[in-house]
């Protein structure tokens, strides 16, 4: 059917990271001139890695790239841009204090390095570009003062100013309001009409259905298939995106949950940029229950966890632990009250990589009597015993208790965190992305341990972008989208298709 030569082809792309993670296992995609190709997949499916390879930011382990039939290899983004490929990242690369004009012309200001920048000429060119696309951005205001949607347009203009004809957009709607999304789509349609080719990376089904011509679905570093959007349904795409075989075996006997241990009421939390990251959540976690929160990352999960663990300010709402109001309590008080927290960011929060296993084994409990001597001294002998106990009990492979934690593998680092948090003897455990980047054996161990905690009548809040994990472990689960729950369901009473829809922002 499609006999034309693709304007761009990525053939058998393999990417293995230095730590052995296989991000891409031989991916081939074809892009035709003047189309909008959707690249659909979950977090960690490999979409962004693939595009970073195309854009010259990462080197592929294997594979070839053909642009207009000629093999190419880009050493840097600048190289890719020079060849007509532009990319707008999820996190913008704008100089915040520069205005739009400065951001756009940076690196191709024209004239000599030490002559006056010809601002008027650049302004004229940009005005023409904006008129063609039927939108305006203020060119003289520092971009940090502009709304996210406008910043994104500046990023698009920056690429167009460099005459790119293939434009990659990585999760472009993740940060936009619904109105901004509409406006973005109008721009994309204009670009398409001008003959530009667009690669649209997303996990949102409705958007992919609305804007793309064809969709390539990627799952776990492999292409599941490519379909024409006109012939696809959201249900089909959802199945392609999440349908999978279960690898790990988790024993989970049925159990009646007990009393409410943890309760959140109408919780509102702001994100780093002041946006409403969590919008009026209400839920409870009972003793002997794993409550899972699934959803694509960046939908407010991080802010939710930080708020309930005392690391971020609560704007509105209340948090209760065993009926006691704990809103605004410091982490230290929470730990003493029976909260444990397996944080999502293992290397920047959960551990201090330069410190030893022993030192890390008491983070967040170093003030406890069992590790103390008189005069504020730490009883290192007791700490060593404690560390050895954790190592033994959790089968952590470590060179020793005095080895720096950075010498441990990712899986063993994570086990150490889990071991430490559990040793705090908590009533309520928050486990955020507990198995991300962890090898299969450790993953299985950690998941089984969370179930064990549940069986021991603890309350567990599991937050994970790994849908499998949430489905397997949870007794009840919620799907989070843009700071709200799309629904609270029981994993065995819901189809994968329904979950896929909810993750894509369609309420159940």
């Amino acid at each position, binding site marked *: 059917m499609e006999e034309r030569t693709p304007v761009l082809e990525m053939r058998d792309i393999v990417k293995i990271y230095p730590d052995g993670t296989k991000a891409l296992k031989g991916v081939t995609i074809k892009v035709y001139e003047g189309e909008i190709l959707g690249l659909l997949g979950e977090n960690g499916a490999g979409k962004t890695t693939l595009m970073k390879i195309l854009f010259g930011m990462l080197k592929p382990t294997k594979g070839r790239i053909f642009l207009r039939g000629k093999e190419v290899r880009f050493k840097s983004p600048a190289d890719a841009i020079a060849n007509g490929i532009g990319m707008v990242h999820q996190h913008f690369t704008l100089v915040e204090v520069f205005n739009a004009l400065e951001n756009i012309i940076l690196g191709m200001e024209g004239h000599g390095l030490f002559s006056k920048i010809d601002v008027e000429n650049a302004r004229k060119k940009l005005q023409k570009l904006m008129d063609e696309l039927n939108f305006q951005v203020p060119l003289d205001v520092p971009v940090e003062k502009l709304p996210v949607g406008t910043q994104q347009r500046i990023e698009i203009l920056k690429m167009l100013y460099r005459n790119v004809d293939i434009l990659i957009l990585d999760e472009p709607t993740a940060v936009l309001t619904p109105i901004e999304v509409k406006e973005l789509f109008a721009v994309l349609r204009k670009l398409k009409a001008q003959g530009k080719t667009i690669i649209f990376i997303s996990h949102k089904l409705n958007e992919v259905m609305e804007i793309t011509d064809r969709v390539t679905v990627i799952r776990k570093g492999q292409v599941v298939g490519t379909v024409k959007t006109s012939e696809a349904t959201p249900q089909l795409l959802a199945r392609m995106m999440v349908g999978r075989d279960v690898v790990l075996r988790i024993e989970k006997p049925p159990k009646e949950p007990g009393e409410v241990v943890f309760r959140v009421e109408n919780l509102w939390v702001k994100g780093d940029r002041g946006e409403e990251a969590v919008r009026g959540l209400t839920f409870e976690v009972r003793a002997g229950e794993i409550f899972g929160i699934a959803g694509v990352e960046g939908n407010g999960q991080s802010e939710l966890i930080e708020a309930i*663990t005392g*690391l971020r300010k609560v704007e509105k709402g209340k948090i209760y632990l065993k009926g006691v109001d704990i809103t605004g309590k410091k*982490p230290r008080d929470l730990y003493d009250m029976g909260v444990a927290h397996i*944080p999502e960011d293992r290397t920047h929060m959960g551990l*201090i*990589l330069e410190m030893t296993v022993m030192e890390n084994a008491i*983070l967040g409990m*170093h003030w406890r009597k069992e590790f103390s001597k008189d005069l504020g001294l730490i009883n290192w002998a007791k700490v060593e015993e404690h560390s050895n106990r954790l190592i033994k009990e959790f089968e952590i492979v470590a*060179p020793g208790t005095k080895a720096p934690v950075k010498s441990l593998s990712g899986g063993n680092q994570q086990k150490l965190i889990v071991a430490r948090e559990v040793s705090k003897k908590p009533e309520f455990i928050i486990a955020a992305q507990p198995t991300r980047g962890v090898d299969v054996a450790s993953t299985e161990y950690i998941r089984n341990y969370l179930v064990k905690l549940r069986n021991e009548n603890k309350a567990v809040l599991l937050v994970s972008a790994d849908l499998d994990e949430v489905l397997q472990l949870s007794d009840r689960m919620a799907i989070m989208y843009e700071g709200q729950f799309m629904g609270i369901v029981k994993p065995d009473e819901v189809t994968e298709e329904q979950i896929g829809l909810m993750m894509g922002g369609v309420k159940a």
Partner: protein
Amino acid sequence: MTALEELKGYIRPLGESVLAILIGALIGAIVLWLSGYNAVAAYKALIQGSFGSLGNFAETLSKSTPLILTAITFAIGARTGLFNIGAEGAVYFGAIAAVAITQSIQNPLAGILAGLFIGALWMLPAAVLKVYRGVHEVISTIMFNWIAFYLASWLALQVFENPMNPNSTLPIPPGARLPLLVKNSTLSLAFVIAVITAVVVYVIMWHTKLGYELRTSGLNSRAAEYGGINPRKAMLWSFIIGGMTAGLAGALQVMGIPPSYSISQGLANVYGYGFDGIGVSLVGRNHPLGIIFAGILFGALNAGATLMQQTGVPLEMVKVIEGIIIVAVAVPGLLDLFLKPLRRGKA
């Protein structure tokens, strides 16, 4: 993990420091040679003057005393993620506090406590500006050092001045002086106090909850917060303890150094230790125990400089060597720069 393996962790930093010292000595020799001096004779005198006899060695240890303490100020800051270069000012005030209090309380302990207290007090404004106003500690501590210099000059020469000798303060009364360890030298109990202080700081930093919190904040403030530690509080403590050791350096400098037992020649005998301490700390890898040895090395350079001067080489040459050592320490992976080509050559 065996003790041997634990020791291995120290070999790399030790190697880098030794290499930096060698580079300093080598470039120093080249500078001497280019300036027309006999570098060999100069270095011989330098070593003779610092280690050649019991008296000379006593001088080395005496000279190292304030350096060890001011280095600790910097080291505690560095371990807490701060560039605290405000030891200099705290030294002046520690000295003045000791002079002041011992006029009425003729007991060395009073002088020591006054030094500790005033040193910490002097460091507080910089700490508050950092924690509550976000003023970078490099800028604030440098400004405070200058303010300290003028205020201390005024206190030393106009408030506590010695009417018999207008260029120095009142001397420490005999009852508050520290006993000498070696006759006819300037080595007093002050050196022992400095070493004990270094050991105490080591214990605080590596064996107490407070030290654990300071180090955690310095390495990873996000993880610290997660672990129930307040990084701001850690910073305040870091300034306070650092101020105490610097203040102590000043107090010991007047209570333990004969013959004057006072701040003399303007501020000359309390001046510059804060800055030199930074180098000592860097060479000692910001570790209190490493600092003892680095302090003795720098003390040796200062003590030996006097004899080196007799070969005609200006004694400031040792500052040049110290400076080169610090620049060399600043080169990341210094050891690798030298070892890698060597290994490649072998392969």
